[in-house]
């Protein structure tokens, strides 16, 4: 029996020396549970000096986000089938070299929206966070900044300068502090300022998110009461929108008439 093979069509580009990006096909032996990350490491070790980044190998760290067959995924847990596969850097971001893209603008945005606690009152007198709020916040805490959601969000309109809409991850952070009873900032007004109206509630960010799945929740831990939490993008965005509409900061959108707000925990697919 001949061994099955993988033909990896890989995006290559170094702006310093290459006039334009090109693709190169590498032929590798296939084996069960071969991942895209493993393919890249193999190419790096045996074929050619190729640049990519990875960390935890278990979708916790969000460092290996890239496009595989046109879809944004984390390379470490994406299986490779025998035959052809296309590996490209994350769409929409400027390429620095091969799979490395410049995420600095989005990262700067994620900081500039002030995800830390805005509080003037003494911390000692802070209100107790109710369990339901705690769960919502802990879900958002799990965002790894892999930025897969930025490649699919239609509200961004491929504008990674984020002048129009701050993007799903930024909205999550604003939402987290909107829920947080200790926070004294006007997070609803902030969300509107950051372009909340442009969000169409299409749910694409939720579908690509590795932390957005019910299964990520798992069982209660042996160490403490809550188990894992997952990110519910539409619930956060919906809550922000509702609050903004209530305060008259945002007009109810006609096009959204049919769209019902999904309940927490409801699958979006």
């Amino acid at each position: 029996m001949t061994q099955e093979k993988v033909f990896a069509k890989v995006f290559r580009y170094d702006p310093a020396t290459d006039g334009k990006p090109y693709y190169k096909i590498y032929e590798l032996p296939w084996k069960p549970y071969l991942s895209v990350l493993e393919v890249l490491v193999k190419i790096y070790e045996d074929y050619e000096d190729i640049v990519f980044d990875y960390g935890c190998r278990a979708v916790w760290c969000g460092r290996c986000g890239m496009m595989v067959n046109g879809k944004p995924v984390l390379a470490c847990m994406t299986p490779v089938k025998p035959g052809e596969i296309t590996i490209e850097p994350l769409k929409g971001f400027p390429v620095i070299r091969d799979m490395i893209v410049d995420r600095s603008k989005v990262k700067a945005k994620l900081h500039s929206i002030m995800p830390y606690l805005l509080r003037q009152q003494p911390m000692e007198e802070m209100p107790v966070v109710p369990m339901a709020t705690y769960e919502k916040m802990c879900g958002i805490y799990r965002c790894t900044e892999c930025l897969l959601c930025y490649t699919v969000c239609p509200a961004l309109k491929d504008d990674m300068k984020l002048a129009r809409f701050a993007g799903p991850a930024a909205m999550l952070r604003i939402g987290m502090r909107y829920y947080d009873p200790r926070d004294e900032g006007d997070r609803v007004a902030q969300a509107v300022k950051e372009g909340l109206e442009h969000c169409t509630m299409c749910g694409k960010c939720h579908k690509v998110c590795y932390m957005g799945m019910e299964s990520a929740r798992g069982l209660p831990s042996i160490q403490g009461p809550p188990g894992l939490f997952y990110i519910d993008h539409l619930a956060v965005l919906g809550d922000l929108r509702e609050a903004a509409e209530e305060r008259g900061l945002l007009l109810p959108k006609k096009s959204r008439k049919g769209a019902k707000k999904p309940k927490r925990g409801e699958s979006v697919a």
Partner: protein
Amino acid sequence: MPKKGFTEGVHSDKEELKCVDVPIPVVHQTDVLIIGAGMAGMTAAIEASDRGAEVILVDKGPFARSGASGINWGHWFITELENPPFPKTPDGIFGWLMVWNEGIGNQKLMRSLAERIFEEKRALWTENTGSLCMRKAPDQVEFVPNTSAVYNALYPWMIGEEVKRRGIPVFERNMVTSLLSHSGVVVGATSVDIKTGGFNVFRAKSVIVATGPLGWLYGWYGVSALTPCQPECTGDGHALLYRAEAELQNMEFGHGEMYGLTPPTLAGSLGGAMATASSPDIADSVCNKDGEFFLKQDSNLSDFKKVTFTYGSLYKAVNEQIKSGKGGPNGGVFFNAKTGWEKNAWRPCLVRAKEYLGWDACAEPVEVMPSLYTYGNSSLIQANINENNETNVPGLYATGMAGMAFDGSTWGMRAGREAAKRAAGIEQEEIDPQQPIRERDRVYGILERNPRNPLRPHVIRHRVQKLATEYIALDRNDKGLRKCIAEIERIRKEDYPRMWVASKKHTWNREFLEALETEFMIDVQEMIARSALMRTESRSTHYRSDYPDRDDQNWLANVYIKRVNGKMKAEKRPVVATEISPEKIRGMLP
């Protein structure tokens, strides 16, 4: 097809290869320089800046998302907890630590840690940075989500935001290549910027080494070593301390949970099967290739709550199985998820592996091996520091996993304060202007190398890593460890000069980074082997098959490693027993 000879490298007789651009050093001045931006480094930065010091943070990975902290458990002893799993008094914690590290902890440091845990109001501290504790009432903390990997990325992310909010300059993706010193005092460091290939020189009044553990030294399984750590954890800090002639200790103690070996992409990661020595179902889940749950046969091992349960006794049992031919094809034993993971907190990881990769940990038992998360048995300190986190070299502080595996943040706080205090009281020492230039030429000289029989950096580093699997991981013995040291010396003498970097580019040169790390890894692997060779007994996570028992008569002692006249020296010294005498310790231990 692979290019012929690419893995081994290509030698060229052409002279043109030798002209590599060398960047001009950019000099930065600060009061406190912190190397490593994990939990310890970031806490140190915040505490130092609170005390008015100028701080610079240098991190090899992406800031607040890398190393061990990027996937860490974020362990903090929050003593305000309603039902803490740990003792509620300094004495209680001290005693608990004593038993945990089987009598060889530095009592002065452990006392200092135990007291500090109560002094710092850390639940409040974390909340000030924006983190969240679950409270019953404002003064009553009920639950602290204590991990990032299994729960959420809470602490590193939030503390990272606090660092940025304060405007502390962070040099991310910068690998520190050397510490600068002037007449025996550490006065700064040099780093290579991976992003641009630039060369940074830092002048500082005090330097804190707050780097992570050594996980990446522990074997090679396709995409990673057998460790949940991220690729940054190559032990740079340990090597920097060693090269600055600071003393290290307890390098022989590893800290290993059992992680899956297959499939390669999941080996050692949190996505694979795993059993933890502290999980209640370990005896139900770890079996040999015949499906026998061998830990159940030993009453000491079947219940983790018993104090007699130690990593050492676990390794011993596992090693016996493998030696008697009941291990798996990759040299491990097995983990049966069906009998174990229903009760196990790790289940979500396995659910994901099934969902995304299509690999089902439940289908059949998965081969597992003790992996390496930290070094130092979690409660043993690896840099020889005093209770102010100072090393024996003036101006050099250590914390984090390079200094203190257990509760890096508490140590980070003290290190930051003490370093800031020192910086406030002194003038910046001069640095020899030639020293950074020499270091730059050495570093970028790696790109210019054109050896006769070239080897690419990853070939050499895999050789170093595989020594761990063969001689250091499970079955340590005199013969093996001597062989290991001989092989390290051979690699240093023969392989390292053959190292050749294919790409001469400066931006994001992965190979260049690996080349720089490899040199450090060789040093660190030698430290581990030499310490393990010296300790002729089994204790805690150090298991010697030729000395399988604990020897309390001779080994209530620590092994110290220091560079003396350019050579590695290991030295045995009795434990620092300021409170409990060795006689009393012998009576205390199970």
